[in-house]
């Protein structure tokens, strides 16, 4: 009898095993919603699949009576726009600061303690400041995500840059590299895959900040909608929205992984 740690499931068995928790959760929900709707056809807590589909259709395929917009897609576009903008800005800033801290000792001395302190500020605690200073527009929401993500990305990149073997950097210098060439031709190219990894890891935090910002001050967006309909206990809206957010996050994650695998084949 082989040890459990050595028993590796085949491809088919692996997929089947992976599906088990999903199916179990779905079944649990189905049973729950059946039981509740049998007792009360107007139950709000666990709406039936038919009810969920109906509501989703109203939101995704019909114009809203009041605003004339198809809310589901308007919300999605608004949230994705904020999220991508914030991800791009924080990745760029984080990479820049991380490279500076990780490669230039003078800049490390000047910036590392500040970045470390900055990273400890709970971004949600300064959300009011952002709203006061930047107003309630898009800028404050994007800024919240950027403030939340940039220090983490910067610290990760500076750590990774510091982990490059000293031998490699010495070698590059013996090949004639200047400081600038060392960063641009040796260090930066090796940081790209790492940048993608850290952005992937920070996707969860990014969504958290996005939804928090939208919940507090917004007129559209996935987070805004969820918190708006909460007042009416509209689980039939909230659940599809949450599922949709999860799906979007998974797709973004998958896209980043594909990008890493294709663009940086050497890093596998």
């Amino acid at each position, binding site marked *: 009898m082989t040890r459990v740690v050595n028993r590796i499931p085949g491809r088919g068995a692996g997929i089947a095993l992976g599906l088990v928790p999903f199916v179990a959760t779905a079944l649990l929900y189905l049973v729950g919603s059946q039981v509740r709707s049998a007792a009360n056809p107007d139950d709000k807590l666990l709406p039936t699949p038919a009810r969920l589909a109906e509501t989703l259709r109203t939101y995704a395929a019909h114009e809203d009576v009041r605003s004339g917009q198809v809310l589901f897609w308007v919300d999605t576009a608004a949230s994705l726009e904020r999220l991508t903008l914030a991800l791009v800005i924080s990745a760029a800033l984080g990479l820049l600061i991380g490279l500076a801290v990780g490669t230039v000792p003078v800049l490390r001395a000047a910036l590392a303690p500040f970045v470390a302190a900055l990273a400890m500020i709970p971004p949600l605690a300064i959300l009011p400041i952002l709203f006061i200073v930047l107003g309630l527009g898009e800028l404050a929401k994007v800024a919240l995500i950027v403030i939340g993500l940039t220090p983490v990305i910067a610290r990760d990149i500076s750590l990774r840059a510091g982990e490059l073997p000293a031998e*490699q950097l*010495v070698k*590059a210098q*013996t*090949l004639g*590299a200047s400081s600038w060439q060392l960063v641009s031709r040796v260090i930066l*190219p090796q940081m790209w895959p790492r940048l993608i990894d850290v952005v992937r890891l920070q996707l969860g935090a990014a969504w958290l900040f996005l939804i928090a910002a939208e919940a507090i001050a917004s007129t559209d967006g996935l987070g805004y909608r969820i918190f708006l309909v909460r007042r009416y206990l509209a689980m039939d809206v909230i659940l599809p929205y949450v599922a949709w957010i999860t799906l979007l996050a998974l797709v973004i994650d998958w896209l980043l992984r594909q990008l890493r695998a294709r663009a940086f*084949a*050497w*890093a596998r």
Partner: protein
Amino acid sequence: MACVTAKGLWKSYGEHVVLENINLEIGEHEFVTIVGASGCGKSTLLRLLVGMEKPSRGALLIDGQPVPPEPGANRGIVFQQYSPFPHLTVLGNMLLGLELRSSRFLGRLFGERRRAAIRKADQLLEIVGLTSARAKYPAQLSGGMQQRLSIAQSVICEPRLLLLDEPFGALDPGLTADMHKLILELWSANRMAVFMTTHDLQEAFHLGTRLIVLDKVRHDPQAPDAYGSRVTYDLRLHRATELRVALTA
């Protein structure tokens, strides 16, 4: 004309003396092999030569000038590992040195200059037997291939001094004979002095025109770090050289 001169060279880390009173005169185009027990300061001597460390006392000169306090293009180095750049292909690794020196800002070459650089790289890849691996990344190469790449990568820059820090220490014993032939070929084809540290005395005799043994002469059992290594043997291996050049010619 001496290529490398050490005059009363000391290196210590705090109380810990590693090298004491090293005096050497190394001529041009010598192949210096440095042997000694682990921790005797072989690698420290190379680190001093490449500029990763500064002498604590005394002088270390290359062509009459003190070694600059940072690594530079006239001194190539090959470490036991980690040398090739993982994000560049074999060809990219070979081109890097040429690109860095002729394109200060972009660090890249284009057009005719790039083609010329590729021709030069291909010639050397042929010599080190990596032509077929030219498009591969270092992670796809064996340890021996990576070392050959790392050596070729330094040699293409035509350094004054090539420093090899136990370059074959991590390799399969079966591979070292090929590597020896290769390094001698490259050494005789280029006007450079080679400094190579090794554990292997036989290798040191086989390759060197000059064999240097580092060892502690003085011991204080109460303070094991108080004394460093000196040059205990400094042998000129002339006959071997002529024989070898004849063999490789």
